[in-house]
């Protein structure tokens, strides 16, 4: 049961990663590329971590996995804001 759950979720995560990567390569300007990267990849990472949580062997591992996702979300969000602001400055 846990294995099926893991396979479904990690496969879905890979789809989001592929979508994010396609967006990064195909979108025309910095802001749309950022949008593809942060939104799709953060969802992908979330699904990946949910899938891995089904394989975890204790609460400590669960907590570490969750912390990884939360930290990556915060870091990616902040970094995206900073890159977007710098790109705005370059365009003006």
């Amino acid at each position, binding site marked *: 049961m846990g294995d099926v759950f893991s396979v479904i979720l990690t496969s879905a995560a890979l789809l989001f990663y592929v979508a994010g990567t396609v967006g990064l390569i195909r979108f025309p300007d910095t802001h749309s590329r950022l949008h593809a990267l942060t939104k799709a990849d953060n969802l992908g990472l979330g699904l990946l971590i949910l899938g891995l949580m089904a394989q975890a062997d204790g609460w400590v591992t669960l907590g570490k996995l969750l*912390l990884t996702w939360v*930290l990556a979300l*915060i*870091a990616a*969000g*902040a970094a995206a*804001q*900073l890159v977007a*602001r710098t790109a705005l400055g370059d365009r003006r």
Partner: protein
Amino acid sequence: MTLAFDLVLCAMIVGAAICAAVAGTIFAAAVFFIVYGIFVSLAWLRLDAFDVALAEAAMGAGLTGILLLRALGRMPASEDRPGPALAPALAGAGLALALGWAFLALPESAGLGPVVRNAAPGAGAENPVTAVLLAFRAWDTLLETIVLLAALLGVWALSRDEAWGLPPGLPQRVRPDGVLAGFGRILPPIGAVVGVYLVWAGTSRPGGAFQGGTVLAAVALLVSMAGLAQAPRVTSGALRLVLVAGPLVFLGMAFIGAVLSLWQPGAAFLALPEAHAKSLILGIELMLTLSIAVTLAALVAGPPEDRA
């Protein structure tokens, strides 16, 4: 299945290395170097070398990558590479082939692993890597920390006379309610806990002064970049004391061993007395962490500058 993973990983390492060597711009080369470091760190994980993986990810990919990008920012804006990279690429490939041949020509052997594992408990650290770094090969580690200090002196020597005496790096201008200021408040508490844990766990599990120090350096840089605290001036006595504290304590312990050897048969320069080895190693690690963290943060911040 794991063989497939290993082969893909090897291909990605070689691919990233080739991309870094032939990349069209220096910026792309630096980015590929960082990617290469992360792949190599994954390879160390696959080899169960957690300490090396941590060090490669934190210092090889993270810190060196930032240093490269910072150096790039100081270079005059030109998009072309300084020259064809053919000769270095050929030299690198030749070295890789020679090393590969040397490895395959080695006779089958269990290596030093069992020897170190048997001797490690008496040396004061259950983690064999820490035992090697601070007991068996303490000489190398001592020199490494002094090399770091020398590197910082080199960076500070690039400072202009008018800027000398300012804090390291560029003056930071941050909007007080902006994203960076908020980010700088969330991450440091977590980073500080992780950094201190890595040092504390280092005697019995993967971790140690270099890995923990890198995490703490990142925390210090974030706090300074987010404008939450001002970095100390390069002329500050307290800053300089912290910079040399680790190597000084390390050297001091080494010399105590040398003095003891006058009347104790087992003692020697850099040999920690077995009865107190564990607490001494922890003490040296803590001081080293402090010095490494501050040195690395100052290296990344760069020489003091008075204009943006």
